[in-house]
């Protein structure tokens, strides 16, 4: 006999190494034995990670192309508008500035287009594309000294005006002279916001062409771009630049404003996606915990055997954790690769930081989800024979009564089942309630979007069209607009940038209507302004200036101070809610007369497109307001996708619960059959048990979701600056359909294994 006494002195490290090897073999054998399940788990985790990545990329790119543009074009972070050429050396020397773009001369001009006059800004640029702040050519050709009449138009501006390479381009200088140019190409840029959110539209020309159109240097401006080492230093750098340049600064624009203009409501969208992402992770954690728990439960016999050989609880917990977390890690890696590949197709890939966050977050979720079942597995009692079966329920008095009253036995037995095994029943119910709750909140978002679309007045878009005077006088424009049969009211208005003294940026102010006859702003808190000097603000502005309703604010518009008292809060989807609205009479005369535009409220049922066409025929420049619901339309797609994922997770939970309860029921099944229940009745019993839990879970989840939906969406709204008051619960019809579909599919899922089990021959005397 080989003596092994020698190794007893090998001590702890050898023991733990040996235990590790043994545990490793068990894990490998277990994974090999259930390849399908393991593969599904990996797939689920990979799916979640990939979905998160794609969602984040969608968020960043589809709704905010700024990042891609600025990365590709090496955009500047700060643009400073000065009257004359600034001290370039001083700017370059500023702490935090790494590169400079420009300075470029820019001049305002007008584009004559089919009889209307569109204001634009011409900016000089050389034929050689610069390193910083480079426009990205998308169509046609860049500026060419050989063809000085060629100009490059910014893409969104060109789209709004239907310009293409080769189109004629008639620029009218401030002195009235007309210059016939042509469009040589289209380009996009990360330095310029999208038209018409960002006006005036930008056109790049050669320096000599600029001189030709605007020969007077007094009417031109100089614009310099600063590229920073760290974009978070923007505020500081702007302060320093303004101080350095003194009174020369006319206007400052930062990358945040450009980004904001390129993606209206991106904060709301971002928060919503974050919410869905977070909850998706939670639901996934629940599903993973359920699946792991179910698996561990099936393995109780083996775990007890291992313990009888001498594994400790901790060793078993660690082994189970290692097994399931490693599956999660594989899933994360696969998901990262898949997500990146898919995202690559749609746009600029996510930053490494964001990917690491997603990976770390998912890993944390996996570890947390797996820990509890693993710990419980470690606590399995070491007697393998003891794990015979779950505690049996007994027929309570109610059940006996029900049987007496001749309720179908299937119903009674099924109901008894659902309520005598409390903990598993609770787990199943919660596993269904949480996804259902999130689905309901998703439906609430849908309802909110529908509300936006149907009642644009509720989001501040009572006026579907905006009319600019163009060549005509503003009075004439107003007359013509009001003459249209579909136009009810034309509100005079102006949108100006105001500088708040201690802020390093400008804020949008909106003067519409008069204080006596104001534009129907959607006031949700406080009241509408009635007099001069009163204003209403969006949530974003209140947060930005750290003021409340009732406070006074002081701003500077083009050098003139403006002091107003905020009397109410409105739902403000533009500019992340950082807009102050008041009557035109609150403005200084120089800014309000003549009005920049007129906001037209149309008759109920009128088609804005038709009216626009008619007014355009009258030489008016008309733009159509874009409903935020349309801008947020990508959310609808995401809601659908998330509903599908959540539904799958919920059904997955249900399958695990069904499988476990079926295993528990094996003996009961045989007894039921022996009692004389037909296979159909047996299946009905099993389905009733699960069905009641499904119904309970779905109804609880839907109720919780309906209650929370309004509150949550309002929270989102508040956080994004748009403001609370937008939240809607899903309509009763929507809820009813969702609940019925959920319960129906749950029952279907429960029916399949139940029918199989009812038909199978189960021996009563089989040793479990």
């Amino acid at each position: 006999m080989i003596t092994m006494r020698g190794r007893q002195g090998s001590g702890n490290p050898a023991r733990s190494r040996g235990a590790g090897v043994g545990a490793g073999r068990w894990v490998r054998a277990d994974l090999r034995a259930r390849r399908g399940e393991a593969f599904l788990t990996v797939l689920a985790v990979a799916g979640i990670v990939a979905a998160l990545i794609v969602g984040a990329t969608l968020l960043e790119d589809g709704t905010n192309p700024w990042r891609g543009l600025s990365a590709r074009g090496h955009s500047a972070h700060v643009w400073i508008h000065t009257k004359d050429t600034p001290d370039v050396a001083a700017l370059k020397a500023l702490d935090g500035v790494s590169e400079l773009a420009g300075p470029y001369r820019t001049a305002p001009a007008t584009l004559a287009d089919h009889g209307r006059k569109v204001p634009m800004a011409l900016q000089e640029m050389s034929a050689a594309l610069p390193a910083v702040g480079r426009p990205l050519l998308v169509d046609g050709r860049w500026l060419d000294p050989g063809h000085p009449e060629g100009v490059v138009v910014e893409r969104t501006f060109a789209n709004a005006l239907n310009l293409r390479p080769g189109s004629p381009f008639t620029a009218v200088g401030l002195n009235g002279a007309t210059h016939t140019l042509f469009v040589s190409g289209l380009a996009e840029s990360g330095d310029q916001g999208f038209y018409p959110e960002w006006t005036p539209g930008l056109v790049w020309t050669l320096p000599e062409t600029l001189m030709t159109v605007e020969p007077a240097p007094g009417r031109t401006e100089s614009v310099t771009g600063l590229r920073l080492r760290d974009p978070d230093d923007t505020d500081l750098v702007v302060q320093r630049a303004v101080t350095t340049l003194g009174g020369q600064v006319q206007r400052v624009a930062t990358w945040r404003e450009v980004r904001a203009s390129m993606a209206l409501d991106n904060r709301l969208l971002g928060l919503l996606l974050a919410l869905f992402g977070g909850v998706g992770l939670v639901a996934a954690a629940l599903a993973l915990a359920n699946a792991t728990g179910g698996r561990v439960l099936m393995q109780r016999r083996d775990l007890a055997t291992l313990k009888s050989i001498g594994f400790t609880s901790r060793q078993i917990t660690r082994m189970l954790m290692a097994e399931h977390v490693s599956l999660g890690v594989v899933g994360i890696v696969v998901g990262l690769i898949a997500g990146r590949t898919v995202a690559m197709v749609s746009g600029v890939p996510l930053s490494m930081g964001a990917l690491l966050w997603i990976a770390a977050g998912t890993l944390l979720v996996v570890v947390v989800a797996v820990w509890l079942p693993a710990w419980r597995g470690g606590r399995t009692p070491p007697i393998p024979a003891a794990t015979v079966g779950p505690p049996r329920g007994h027929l309570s008095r109610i059940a006996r009564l029900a049987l007496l009253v001749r309720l179908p036995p299937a119903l009674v037995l099924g109901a008894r089942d659902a309520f005598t095994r409390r903990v598993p029943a609770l787990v199943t119910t919660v596993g269904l309630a949480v996804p259902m709750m999130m689905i309901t909140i998703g439906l609430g978002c849908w309802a909110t979007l529908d509300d936006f679309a149907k009642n644009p007045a509720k989001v501040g878009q009572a006026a579907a069209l905006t009319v600019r005077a163009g060549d005509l006088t503003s009075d004439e424009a107003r007359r013509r607009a009001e003459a249209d049969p579909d136009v009810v009211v034309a509100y005079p208005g102006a949108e100006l940038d105001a500088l708040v003294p201690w802020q390093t940026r400008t804020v949008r102010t909106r003067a519409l209507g008069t204080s006596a006859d104001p534009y129907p702003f959607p006031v949700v808190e406080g009241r509408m302004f009635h007099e001069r000097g009163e204003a209403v603000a969006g949530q974003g502005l209140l947060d930005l200036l750290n003021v409340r309703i009732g406070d006074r604010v002081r701003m500077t518009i083009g050098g003139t101070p403006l002091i107003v008292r905020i009397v109410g809060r409105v739902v403000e989807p533009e500019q992340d809610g950082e807009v102050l609205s008041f009557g035109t009479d609150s403005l200084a005369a120089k800014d309000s007369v003549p009005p920049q535009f007129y906001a037209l409220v149309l008759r109920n049922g009128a088609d804005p497109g038709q009216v626009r066409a008619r007014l355009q025929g009258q030489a008016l420049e008309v733009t159509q307001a874009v409903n935020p619901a349309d801008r947020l339309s990508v959310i609808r797609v995401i809601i659908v996708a998330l509903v599908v994922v959540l539904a799958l997770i919920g059904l997955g939970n249900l399958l695990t619960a069904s499988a476990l309860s079926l295993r528990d029921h094996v003996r009961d099944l045989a007894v039921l059959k022996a009692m004389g229940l037909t296979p159909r009745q047996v299946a009905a019993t099993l389905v009733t048990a699960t069905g009641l839990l499904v119904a309970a879970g779905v109804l609880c989840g839907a109720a919780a979701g309906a209650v929370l939906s309004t509150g949550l969406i309002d929270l989102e709204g508040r956080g994004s600056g748009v403001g609370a008051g937008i939240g809607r619960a899903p309509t009763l019809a929507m809820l009813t359909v969702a609940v019925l579909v959920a319960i129906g599919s749950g029952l279907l899922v429960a029916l399949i294994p139940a029918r199989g089990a009812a038909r199978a021959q189960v021996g009563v005397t089989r040793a479990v």
Partner: protein
Amino acid sequence: MQSGAVVRTVNLVKIYQTGGLPVPAVRGVDLEVADGEFVAIMGPSGSGKSTLIHMIGGLDTRTSGEIWLDGQRADTLSESGWAVLRREKVGFVFQFFNLVATMTVADNVELPALLGGASARQARERREYLLGELGLTERAEAAPAQLSGGEQQRVALARALANQPRLLLADEPTGNLDSRNGRDVLRLLRDIHEKGQTIIVVTHDAKVAGMADRVVMLLDGQIVDDGRSVRRTSSKRPGGAGDVIELRG
């Protein structure tokens, strides 16, 4: 080390608390098993014999009383302490074999050795030796499900002996086997007993009990008989079955 007592229990008591009523399973058992003894514990179902052997092996906790394993006080150990003790000193064989179904026979037998700190090579050598002794070498790479009941129990026996335990505990080892396989296992038990292994078997199979040096009778949680079985003949008398058994008719 004490004078050879491998197991010593003093007034061992186990009371189960199920629902409201406490159920006493073992009521004050004093048992002492010397080195190299083969003890059979018999008794009707519900007499507490399985509970007793589980407690001796640390698979179940005691309510009161002392358990001494190889001169060491064991009943005060924590669960992990018991696990370590079991690794080194106790081998367990169950009625339903309890092999890990997903691992091969070889892995099953090597598992306790690895747990005890042996290297993979040492574990493999030990396994090869054991399977050879038990006549299962060619089944080393098979899955347990491919083996007959008797072969599986022999594998379980090999696993139990992997760490050369001081004590082999068996709970109804032939309970799930037909007579032929039962005979094989019984023969193995006799062989390892002759090599000096201390064995405690819980059984209601008279063939197993007959093989033991000492039979302890448990009734209602208490010992009612503890003594050596009487051999009718001490010498083997040559003769056929017909001489020993009276045929009637």
